[in-house]
């Protein structure tokens, strides 16, 4: 407190404070988050997924290291306990936007792509965006069935 008073004494003239914009992590961007969700659902059976699997894959698709680890666990060269899994609140918000945009529909515990969501996901898959994430999801999406995810979450062998 004392130091603030000293500063106030020194800066006695007129000065203004401009708020600088704050940087944000790339995966916190609305467009990025929604696209990841669309790609994720598109890679799953019947284009639908439980919330648990959505959180599981969304968290693990974010970095090269976690993607590799997931591949290893699914290939059974590493154990489920090696994976750190988090529930990402941003995925819920991305889902809310995707639902509002009409790309995703929800039925209680599940998220599913709508017809326009399927088209949007197909367009994303064609473009060179989120390429690493897309390749990862296409490779593991079908392997990580609801049952497998359940086992991994419970740290059981599968």
């Amino acid at each position, binding site marked *: 407190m004392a130091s603030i008073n000293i500063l106030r004494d020194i800066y006695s003239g007129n000065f203004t404070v401009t708020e600088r914009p704050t940087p944000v992590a790339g995966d916190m961007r609305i467009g990025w988050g929604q696209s990841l969700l669309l790609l994720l659902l598109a890679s799953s059976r019947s284009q639908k997924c439980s919330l648990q699997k959505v959180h599981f894959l969304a968290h693990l698709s974010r970095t090269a290291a976690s993607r590799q680890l997931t591949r290893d666990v699914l290939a059974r060269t590493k154990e489920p306990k090696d994976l750190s899994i988090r529930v990402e609140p941003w995925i819920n918000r991305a889902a809310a936007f995707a639902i509002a945009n009409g790309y995703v529909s929800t039925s209680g515990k599940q998220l599913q792509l709508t017809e326009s969501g399927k088209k949007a996901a197909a367009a994303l898959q064609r473009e060179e965006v*989120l390429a690493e994430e897309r390749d990862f999801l296409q490779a593991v999406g079908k392997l990580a069935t609801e049952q497998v995810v359940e086992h991994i979450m419970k740290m059981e062998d599968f």
Partner: protein
Amino acid sequence: MSLSVRHIRLRANTSAGLYGTDIDLDGGFTVLHAPNTSGKSTVLHAVLYALGLEQMLSPKRGRIPLSFTMRTHVEDPDTEQQHAIIESYVAVEIENAAGERLTVKRYVKADIDRKLVQVARGPQLTAGGQYERRDYFVLDPGAAQREIGFHHMLARFMDWDLPIVKRYDGKDCLLYIETLFPLFFVEQKIGWTTIPAAIPTQFQIRDVHRRSIEYLMGFDTHEIELKRQDLDLKINALRQEWTSTIASIEAIAGAAGLRVLGLPKAPTSMGDDVKASFLQVFVDGKWSNLDQHLAALREELAKLQDQDIPEVEGLAEEARLAVDQLNREIQHLNGLRNELFRERQAETVQLASTQRRIEHLKEDLQKHKDAKKLKTLGSTIGRDLSPHHCPTCDQLLDDVLLPQGTIEAVMTLDENIEYIDAQRRTFERLANRSVAAIHGLDLELLNTGEELRQKTIRLRALKTDLIAPSHAASASFIEEKLRIEHRVELLSGSRARFEQQIVRLCEHAETWTKLLEDKTNLPDDRLSASDKDKLNMLEASIRSQLGAYQFITFSPAALTVSQDTYRPEKEGFEIGFELSASDTIRLKWAYQLGLLDVAMSSDTNHPRFLVMDEPRQQEAAELSVAGLFSEAARVAGMGAQILIATSERLESVEAALRDKQCQLIRFDGRLVRRLDETAAP
């Protein structure tokens, strides 16, 4: 230099008989008129297919650019019944400047390999008869260069001496025929999309758009440009060579615990700068000049060699003192090395964490770049993926997946990208510093380790002296002599290897000087006077045509043709989106016809042949099409062949062609129709 298509034949043999069409061209200005979806494009694509040019349309080999009418089944225009095709082919008769004719036939559906092209040396389609026949191949590697390659033969027939150009991988290849045809064959699928032309890029030819125009228009600059490319590649290769020599010099020095000073890291033409570099050696805790150290060592060695080997008796006291001194020194060295180890470990941890940080930043940067791309993608897939407003309640949104309002002001994507990039650069500098620091510490560890080893050996020799019988020869004296001898040998060996590399570097410096000289000697002005004349003529032709086509976006007088890219420009800026759709099409007509116009009065490699499929493109006004016909008639009047296919209203076509020298070929329905027995098979 010319090419002219004199006859086009399509044949499809079906279960219900023979179908097909024949189009005879008089070699001047021809308008092929038929309604929409009647198969005009199929006929024009057939020309490209017969000439093995389908890679002009799609990079995929084996994809036939023809509609189902030639591939699978024919729909009879009268009965509307479908008949499966048993066998089908296309054939064209072409003529060159010398009046020689070739008939080129290629099967579409048949048991014969589609890569085969059958060539008869004569006007088989128009005059009939038997001519010498030979098979050539297309699409396979070598089709452009080998004797039995069809494109090799076609280029010779057209009197084209195709130049060798550079590819992106630095290798040489021919300027393939497929990269030239789009400049005078505007087909409907992709032909209208770009100016100068939709030139295929799959051949990986550097600056292919420029190279093809330069060759087609016979620019002198072509040679110069090829030289320039060659020099650039050599310069890059030398840069790499230089870096690898520097790396080996540093490896030689590092292995002997030496360091190099004054070495130019990037290529230089100053051989003296290279020769001025020198080696340093770490002695008694500091770096000193290797040559001086070597001289001192040699002097010491000479002194020892002059002496007789002393007996231990006289050295006992001296040896005792030396042992004490050495013990202290060894202790000190051990302490120092411990400290160095710790420092190195700390730096390694620091480097690893910086590298992790860089990795994260790279990932985040990629995510932001993706987010930016998504912004533009949103408009093509319907709803915006990163909306500014809430899709439900329309409130203003911050572009962040946190509870709205958590962050007062969110950085925009561009700012954020810049911010991450700046951080990445800083951390990369930090990482480079750490790498250099670790390298320095490694050198010190190596040197102190070697010093420790030497001192321990010396200590052992001195201790041996202390317990030896009094008349024995001094082991420490012999050890010292051997040690210095060995050291001199090691250091002078490294020095010699260093010198060898410096000689190599000096040679590089000479080559570098020569390359830079060659580069300076290339003319500043890329284009010769005659090249500029041709460009000016092209500019004038385009401007006058635009006037005739009612071009409205800006005054045709403001249009120029870039001396660099050869694309049309306005006030020095490339013309892009500001053009209306119809003016884009008009400009395309003017450019393509302009190239031909220039070719009619100057020496170029243009085949004096132009095809335009459906120039109206649903965009340009009827009035302008009349303008195009009149310009085409003018240019064709000078001796060129121009073929325009259109489905414009017949009355307006006839009105536009009135009083003009033109062959009008009309089809009321489909071009491919049932043929009677009198037709050629």
